[in-house]
């Protein structure tokens, strides 16, 4: 997995900015002004690099190794592996800290518009612990970033923190995406909590391919509020879900399979089917042993081997009702065979690691595998290779 940030040597003329990386072969087709481009010459023979080329008003130039550019040129030399960034990516230059961050990777399936670090929930298993910081500047930043994303990008997540805390800033971001990325599937990962009546309605018809992923951890408030550590969250999320439905939004329910939720998983599935039959997808997800989860292993860890039958029942109940179901982050050897068709391989590269025991497994290629940072305490006792031809 490639890092998202690297140290770099930046010439004095380089300004803090977001730039689209282009190669010699493709900058001519780009409609983005040169000031917002970083010309990547790292693989270009030095003989081909002319002063006239470098002297164009680029936002930055990544020079060939060993070639010194004129002092006035906005040269940026990246440390770290060469594959760190490539043509099509978007980089953020930070001259003060002498860092370059990759904000968008062409061809990566996991690109995220990171909306805010703030959150109004405080989930026991949060993989990305929130911080109460003033980061409304991110709206401006994302609006700039969206201009530089490939118009044929298939999908982007909008995540945080809690993106709806940006208020109308989130509406602006989605509106901007509708203008420049109308063909991109946008998936907003939100807790859905409705705090301002009328907020969710603003998304009606806003973008042609927008959906929401909203977690629900219980069929009654004491359970859900405990998992997200916030009183009143259950009721706000339900109201948000109905508001989204009223605004004709596509909704996915996301359930992290933590122990207290697993204990009422069938009831939760029934609750979704009875009360939220409009949801188009339910994602049941194995717990990610990172962030806050590590501090709550005892409260949160449930071995899939122990809840196999309720998992089957819950999946069956939803699937019979015509709600599509996917299982994420669960090794297939820990699942009943009837559930294999629902198991999905993660699109995120750090979720597709395998254990030594998986060496000879014949269904590895269809297995969700493990998080890169999994430890034995978070591993099902039923993990064992499936041997068949």
């Amino acid at each position, binding site marked *: 997995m490639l890092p998202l940030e690297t140290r770099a040597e930046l010439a004095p003329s380089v300004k803090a900015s977001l730039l689209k990386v282009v190669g010699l072969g493709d900058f001519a087709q780009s409609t983005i002004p040169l000031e917002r481009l970083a010309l990547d010459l790292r693989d270009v023979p030095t003989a081909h690099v002319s002063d006239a080329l470098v002297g164009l008003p680029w936002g930055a130039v990544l020079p060939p190794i060993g070639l010194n550019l004129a002092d006035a040129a906005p040269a940026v030399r990246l440390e770290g592996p060469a594959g760190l960034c490539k043509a099509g990516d978007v980089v953020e230059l930070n001259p003060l800290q002498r860092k370059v961050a990759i904000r968008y990777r062409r061809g990566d399936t996991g690109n995220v518009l990171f909306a805010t670090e703030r959150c109004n929930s405080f989930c026991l298993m949060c993989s990305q612990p929130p911080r109460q910081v003033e980061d409304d500047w991110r709206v401006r930043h994302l609006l700039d970033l969206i201009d530089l994303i490939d118009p044929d990008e298939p999908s982007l997540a909008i995540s945080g923190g809690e993106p709806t805390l940006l208020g109308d800033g989130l509406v602006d971001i989605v509106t901007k995406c509708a203008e420049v990325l109308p063909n991109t599937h946008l998936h907003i990962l939100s807790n859905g909590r409705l705090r301002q009546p009328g907020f969710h309605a603003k998304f009606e018809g806003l973008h042609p391919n927008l959906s929401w992923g909203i977690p629900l951890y219980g069929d009654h408030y004491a359970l859900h*509020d405990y998992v997200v550590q916030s009183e009143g969250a259950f009721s706000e999320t339900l109201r948000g879900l*109905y508001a989204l439905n009223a605004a004709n939004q596509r909704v996915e329910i996301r359930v992290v399979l933590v122990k207290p939720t697993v204990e009422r998983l069938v009831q939760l599935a029934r609750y979704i089917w009875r009360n939220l039959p409009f949801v188009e997808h339910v994602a049941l997800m194995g717990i990610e042993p990172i962030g806050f989860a590590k501090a709550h292993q005892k409260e949160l860890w449930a071995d899939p081997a122990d809840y196999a039958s309720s998992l089957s029942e819950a999946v069956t109940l939803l699937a019979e009702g015509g709600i599509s179901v996917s299982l994420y982050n669960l090794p297939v050897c820990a699942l009943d065979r009837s559930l294999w068709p629902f198991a999905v391989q993660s699109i995120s590269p750090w979720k597709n690691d395998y254990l030594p025991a998986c060496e000879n497994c014949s269904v590895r290629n269809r297995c969700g595998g493990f998080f890169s940072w999994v430890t034995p305490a978070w591993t099902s006792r039923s993990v064992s290779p499936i041997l068949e031809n």
Partner: protein
Amino acid sequence: MSRFRAAQSFAAPPDYRLLPFRFRRLPWDEARAFVSSMAGDWLLMPMQDVQRLVAHQLPTDSPLFADLEARHLVVAGTDRSSLAPLLSQIRSRKSYLLGGPALHIFVVSLRCHHTCSYCQVSRQETTATTFDMAESHAEQAVERLFEWPSQELTIEFQGGEPLLNFGQVKAITRRIVERNRTAGRTLRFVLASTLHDLTDAQLAFLAEHGFKLSTSLDGPEWLHNANRPRPSKDSYRRTVDGIELGRRWLGEDGVSALTTLTRQSLEVPEAIIDEYRKLGFHSISLRPLSPYGFATRTARRTGYPTEDFLAFYRRAFDHLLAVNRAGYAMDESYASLLLSQLFTSFGHGYVDLRSPSGAGLGAVIYDYDGRVYPSDEARMLAAMGDGAFALGDVSQPISRWLSSPAMVRLLEAGVAEALPTCADCAFVPMCGADPIEHYARQGDPVGHRPSSDFCRRNMGLFDFLLQRYEAADGEVQALMRSWAVPKSSMEEITDAAA
């Protein structure tokens, strides 16, 4: 100190309030009850727990209490809970109210070849063309049709035998399609017919407009011919020929069939189901006789008590399960309807099982003579000389019909939740009022529900399906649940028209 709090600190307070609920002791197990919410979400629980629930003695941190909360039967901590899901379920259950009547039945002729003893419509001789719908009435009826707000309109042609006045079927269809160029509604056309003497030319027209056919098939040849006499004694063969021809033009799912059950039918549920299987049907509707048309006059010969129907139904259901287990998929449409009310939170398209009443609010009948009725049953009553439920005629705007005394009569007795006895029935959120049937049978649209055949039949079927489901193995339970999930639009239409 940890920034995280333990589960107990999020627990509900020990006090709770009851939300409106109803319960029914299970007839097959008096120690337990079926308990249902305002929206018809439900569970089975011991009577003992019902008593503790009502006495406010249940611990709010128990799994049972969570089950009750999740079904919107109780609420603890009103500041942290929400009634939004309950309201959403009610809205979903009653969604049939939102658009206005969607089913519009055009009776293009009363003429029919048949002389069925149970006929629901007081048929006329095939030569009696004065019982055909006149051009002027047809024109006005189409104008009225587009006064209704419903975005989806199902237009069903019925008779008598509508094929005997097919010219009018064509004229009305064309007029509606023409009118719809500007109106932009979603149209569905159904022809309810014996399918006798159906021609390729007629089918070409029906196919062009995406018609579905709904026919009557009472069972095997001997039974069908006994129930549906024609002088030529060949009703069965002609219907089966019509089904085959219809499928050739409209596709396998283009033709559906209904069974009317006479006393003779009650002896042979297996034979009826096997007949449907033989003819390739994957759905069957087992309909008891209605108390209308010629049926009341011949009730002594063809009629039967509800208990006999229920006994028949139990036998039929078992056979149907056996057929399914043998690998042939077939559902019974009324069971599917009731199971959908038990196992989903959705509304449905079936007019007779609605509250507020589906008559007038869900369906409108335009009779051959220009008179307008809220249901087929109201039309039959009028044919027998009782116009209590006549809305008016096609020359009047629909606002006149809606303010007619018939509509007042319907609505006053049309909300099951507000009717004596129904108001306390645990099945009422998934049941209907059917004021016209009660008027026809008991002389009063409210009626006396404890002695009502409608109640006996529906409660008997709910009880039976629940008991059967509880006792069933996983395979049968899954089958029954699969019947409950909303079907294709075709089956909804058949339900609506049934």
